[in-house]
């Protein structure tokens, strides 16, 4: 049993904090004092809605309502399509055409995945795409790191002009120079040659920009100390600059690989042999000729690699997204 005095002080304290919270004198009936006060919504940082407003009785109600609505809406908008795609692939061709559609496959069978694998020749397509993505990554890392290092630490004559010209390419939308780029690739005889994808991938102003900005932030003393110890420019790059640049190298790597995996238009034009197509192009060419559940099977398989990448590298990807854009 709580003594009368204690209840009194508790009441006063709560009334005080409540009146503070609501911004006006509160008259709270004694009865409510005994009820456990709901846990306040923890506020780590101040945003538009103030913590006081948020923790007022109405603020709290609205907050939970909005939270629930947003979670439901996001799940419907961004998760449900994935669910529909996967269950679509597990249905039979008859069930997938049913009206109204079944929410859960009546007799889930992975047959469509195997059929899609054979019909689209997904093994070859995935191997091609992985090969092109890996090559694009390796080549553009070597080229762009070397260039960014030269521009940042070696500072040659006309370095800024070159950097400016490289960054200027970011202003030109890729679709606009697609045709002349294609014509150039044809002139060089690079059709159906992976270099037709790897050379343009390395000409990436954004990578150069990100890498150079990071290299700029490496203290001069570090580089100079290595130089005094007799390290040449290559040694400085390999033993000093690269080891401290791991975060940015990770970000640039992931973005290069993801972009190369997702690319559609250039591979569509350059890799035209059915033996050499990427997964995106292969799917787009054959999708009209197979049943709907097989298409879905193919889409699921094509989507999986990048979703796995996202699961593993989520933090890097999100960090990279903001690193590149905010300060740019």
């Amino acid at each position, binding site marked *: 049993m709580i003594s009368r005095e204690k209840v009194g002080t508790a009441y006063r304290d709560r009334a005080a904090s409540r009146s503070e919270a609501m911004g006006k004198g509160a008259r709270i009936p004694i009865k409510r004092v005994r009820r456990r006060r709901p846990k306040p919504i923890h506020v780590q*940082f*101040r*945003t*538009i*809605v*103030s913590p006081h407003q948020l923790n007022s009785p109405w603020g709290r109600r609205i*907050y939970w309502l*909005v*939270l629930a609505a*947003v*979670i439901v809406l996001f799940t419907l*908008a*961004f*998760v449900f*399509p*994935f669910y529909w*795609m996967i269950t*679509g692939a597990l249905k039979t061709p008859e069930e997938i*055409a049913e*009206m*109204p*559609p079944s929410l859960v496959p009546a007799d889930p069978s992975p047959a469509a995945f195997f059929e899609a694998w054979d019909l689209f020749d997904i093994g070859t397509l995935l191997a091609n795409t992985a090969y092109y993505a890996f090559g694009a990554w390796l080549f553009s890392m070597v*080229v762009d790191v*070397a*260039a960014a290092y*030269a521009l940042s630490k*070696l500072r*040659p004559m006309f370095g800024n002009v*070159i950097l400016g*010209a*490289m960054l200027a*390419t970011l202003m*030109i939308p890729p*679709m606009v*120079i*697609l*045709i*002349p780029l294609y014509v150039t690739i*044809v002139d060089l005889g690079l059709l159906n040659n992976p270099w037709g994808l790897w*050379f*343009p991938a*390395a*000409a990436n102003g954004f990578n150069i920009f990100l890498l150079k900005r990071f290299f700029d932030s490496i203290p001069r003393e570090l580089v100079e100390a290595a130089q005094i110890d007799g390290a040449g*420019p290559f040694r400085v790059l390999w033993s000093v600059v690269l080891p401290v640049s791991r975060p940015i190298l990770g970000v640039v790597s992931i973005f290069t690989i993801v972009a190369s995996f*997702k690319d559609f*238009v250039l591979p569509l034009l350059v890799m035209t042999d059915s033996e050499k197509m990427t997964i995106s192009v292969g799917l*787009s060419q054959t999708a009209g000729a197979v049943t*709907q559940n097989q*298409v879905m099977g193919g*889409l699921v398989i*094509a989507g999986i690699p*990048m979703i796995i*990448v*996202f699961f593993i590298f989520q933090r890097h990807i*999100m960090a990279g*997204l*903001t690193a590149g*854009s*905010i300060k*740019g």
Partner: protein
Amino acid sequence: MRRNLTAYGFLCAALFCFTVFAWYPMVREFILSFQKTDLINPPTWVGLDNFKAAVQDPAFGEAWLNTVEFTVLALLCGYAVPFVVALVLNELRHARAYLRFVVYLPVMLPPIVAVLLFQWFYDPGPGLFNQILGFFHLPPLAWLDSSSTALISLVLVSTWMNMGSATLIYLAALQNIPPELYEAAELDGAGILKRVRHVTIPQTRLILLLMLMLQIVATMQVFIEPYMLTGGGPENATVSVAYLMYQFAFSQMNYGQAGALGMLLMLALLLFAAIQLRATREDRA
């Protein structure tokens, strides 16, 4: 001198890639637009004929109109929605990791997967969207098959698959706003909407302007959606400039005409960028 030599040694690979595959194509576009070439026979100079032919193409006017319309719709969906979503997400104190993860999920999909998935959703018969409409006893829509809804259907797909990155970028910008500003505004008696108007938007102005430009440039060159979903139809309702360019080049094998249209698109984007730059400068002064 030696330093320059080693530096250019490190630079040479990148200079090669940029020269041949980024800078030269811009020049090549200019040359191409005055030539007639099918890449088999040697090109001939034709003066302004390519521009004339491009402008006189029956789909030319429609393509520009569609592109502008697409851009405006995409701005309403793809520009405003992520900002509002980011505002709301920033206020939430729970499930943040989940919501951020989920909104970015479609961005990771190859665009072709998203497009083919939505193609099925748009199916007028057993497609998901009409089934949902039917569930609520609403009349079905023709989606991609009607010239009145085809364009907005394309905007919907492209918003779904692209809004994640914009949302996360805005979210990061919102988190950089110093909390004192909100406290000060609140002390001055500003309500929630006024705080958005007078604190949030001015504080994120730079990123908002940058994203506006990126968004417009990105949507001006929309290609994969009309290419896969509608083939420009019905009745040219979804022909975009980029798609028309592709058709000039690869259906009609008329690379010069495609180059001319590309030049026009580039000029339009440059003009737009100049206007934008001027507007922001006046704004600042």
